[in-house]
């Protein structure tokens, strides 16, 4: 059904379509609209789920964990400080191999209080064993949330998935949305290690070094297998519903000499910048990284690269720029832009390309090349 919606409402609508047994909810700007909308669905009877209005994000994830280990499909949503407050349980969910799906509305971390878009919140959870995906449009938020449940719950994965959308820029932007009848696109969840009172087991008991190490390796193996599952899920989604995105979305990429790499809404903005640059005769293209974990295998050989990081690791650099350089030899210009919701237009992005200085790092609007 064609409608218009915000990014937040698109996520809520997708959650309604897959009918989780249990949803734990705690408000935080700019995520709140998701849990409000789901509360509406549950109250009106449109969604038959148990809605647990927890007293903190730590408890939101703990409640999802408790529900998930019974074999129930679960969902929660958070942002920024909420995500960091649940950090311990974010680790627990992955370690316990629970296919929880969570929407995280990317927002800067204080102090001072800043409610606008930045990716540093989710990036701080990148080593927890969660799959992470970043979306750029309302439709993509909806489609990806549907896909997230199928990927998380797939027998070859059984890991939690975090769907990230930029605070306000996407969470509160109204765009057209085609809602779907997902049918059996997301099959019922079968959790192989669900609690069974007829076959009692200890979960998370004291575990020695050898077993602990082996369990970590199992997570990594699942993460590696998830690449195939993501691809299969995308393919089936495209066949059924006619839309696909890829691990990283390419735009005028094939013959590009200089490539802009960005995530979330900045990645979409970069496409406009590419058109501008092409009109000027610059052979530009863009790559919007969708999946941060598992990190995509990108072949950037022979191209110049401008990476825009809406994040930073102090004393290290832009996290995407550094991650790409760690994986391949690439002539890269690192731009730090958009922190705390800083406005970054397609003109600005075109400017980064025009004035690129490979091998250096720019803090846009704050400092020259350093």
């Amino acid at each position, binding site marked *: 059904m064609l409608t218009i919606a915000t990014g937040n409402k698109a996520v809520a609508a997708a959650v309604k379509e897959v009918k989780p*047994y*249990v949803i*734990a909810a705690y408000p935080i700007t700019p995520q709140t609209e998701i849990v409000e909308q789901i509360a509406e669905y549950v109250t009106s009877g449109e969604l038959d*789920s*148990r809605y*647990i*209005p*927890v*007293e*903190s994000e*730590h*408890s*939101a994830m*703990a*409640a*999802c*964990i*408790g*529900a*998930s*280990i*019974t*074999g*129930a499909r*679960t969902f929660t949503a958070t942002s920024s400080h909420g995500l960091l407050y649940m950090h*311990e*349980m974010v680790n*627990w969910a992955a370690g316990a191999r629970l296919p929880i799906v969570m929407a995280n509305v990317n927002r800067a971390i204080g102090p001072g209080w800043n409610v606008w878009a930045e990716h540093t919140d989710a990036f701080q959870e990148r080593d927890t064993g969660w799959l992470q995906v970043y979306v750029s449009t309302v439709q993509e938020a909806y489609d990806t949330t549907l896909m997230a449940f199928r990927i998380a719950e797939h027998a070859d994965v059984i890991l939690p998935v975090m769907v990230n959308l930029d605070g306000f820029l996407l969470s509160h932007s109204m765009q057209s949305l085609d809602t779907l009848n997902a049918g059996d696109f997301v099959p019922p969840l079968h959790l192989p290690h669900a*609690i*069974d*009172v007829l076959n*009692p*087991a*200890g*979960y*998370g*008991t*004291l*575990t*020695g070094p050898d*077993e602990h190490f082996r369990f970590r390796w199992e997570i990594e193996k699942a993460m590696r297998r998830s690449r195939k599952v993501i691809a299969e899920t995308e393919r089936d989604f495209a066949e059924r519903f006619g839309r696909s995105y890829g691990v990283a979305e390419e735009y005028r990429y094939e013959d590009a000499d200089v490539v802009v790499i960005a995530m979330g809404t900045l990645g979409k903005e970069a496409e406009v910048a590419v058109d501008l640059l092409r009109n000027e005769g610059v052979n530009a293209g863009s790559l919007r990284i969708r999946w941060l974990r598992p990190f995509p295998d990108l072949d950037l050989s022979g191209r110049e690269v401008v990476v825009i990081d809406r994040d930073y690791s102090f004393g290290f650099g832009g996290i995407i720029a550094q991650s790409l350089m760690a994986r391949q030899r690439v002539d890269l210009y690192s731009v730090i832009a958009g922190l705390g919701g800083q406005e970054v237009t397609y003109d600005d992005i075109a400017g980064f390309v025009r004035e690129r200085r490979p091998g250096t790092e720019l803090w846009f609007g704050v400092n020259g090349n350093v």
Partner: protein
Amino acid sequence: MTEIPKEEFILKCTSACAGCPSTLILRYVLKAAGADTVLVVPACCTSVIQGIYPNTAVNVPVYNVAFAAAAACASGMSEAFQKAGKKTNVIVYAGDGGTVDIGIQALSGAFERETDFLYICYDNEAYGNTGMQRSGSTPIGARTTTTPGGKVHAKKDLDAIVAAHNPSYLATACAAYPQDLFKKVQKALTLRGSKFIHVLAPCPPGWRFSSEMTVEMGKLAVRSGLWILYESEFGKVTINGPSKAAMIKPIPIEDYLSVQGRFKGIDRKAIDALKSQAEQRAKHLQKEAEGIC
């Protein structure tokens, strides 16, 4: 005498200390709850007592979870079981640190939401698993590794905090009175909503007494009036037998303190504070039981 089932859910391979009250308590809790039960256990001695993966000494499913997360985890579990049409008992089995300190926010939230579960706090009045550091539940005057001169603050009134949430059932119990504990767990599990049982767990290595004295130590706690056995069903308070007798004629609290190494060298002021707290608590509960307040 209450008929207590012969079936054991604690197998003979725990890694508990000799004379462990936690294991004793859990044994009767599970006898009362039966096989259709899941335990949620935050970090505490019971995390270790179960044994090391892939073995377990507990014959019901045990979900071990992070320190602050037990009550919230149980909330999710309880809701999921209900949604699936299952009547499985969800029981949190947590120490005092995981309850009165780091777990109190999740506990409060779960009780406010009237989560259908039973929360059992076994209280050995310190962080036992990490080697006896003070907790909010450590009594005044007690030496722990972080209060080497004796604790200067009073024991947190956990029961009053839980009572403020108007739970459907609240009771105290003690490892030394397993029949009383068994009946309370059984009763709690017949009621819907949030139920709470606070069990005193005299800990031989932590309290520094000989390991065959666990039951005796629990009895001294009750007879001295420092631990009062009572229950509150939908707010109606009943003081239980052993504590009724103790209220009429308590033994001197020194008889309880002097047999524990943790109170060695306790000063008069701390003893008086303990006495006065015990008296006030008894008076308050008596009034509640008589329906005066």
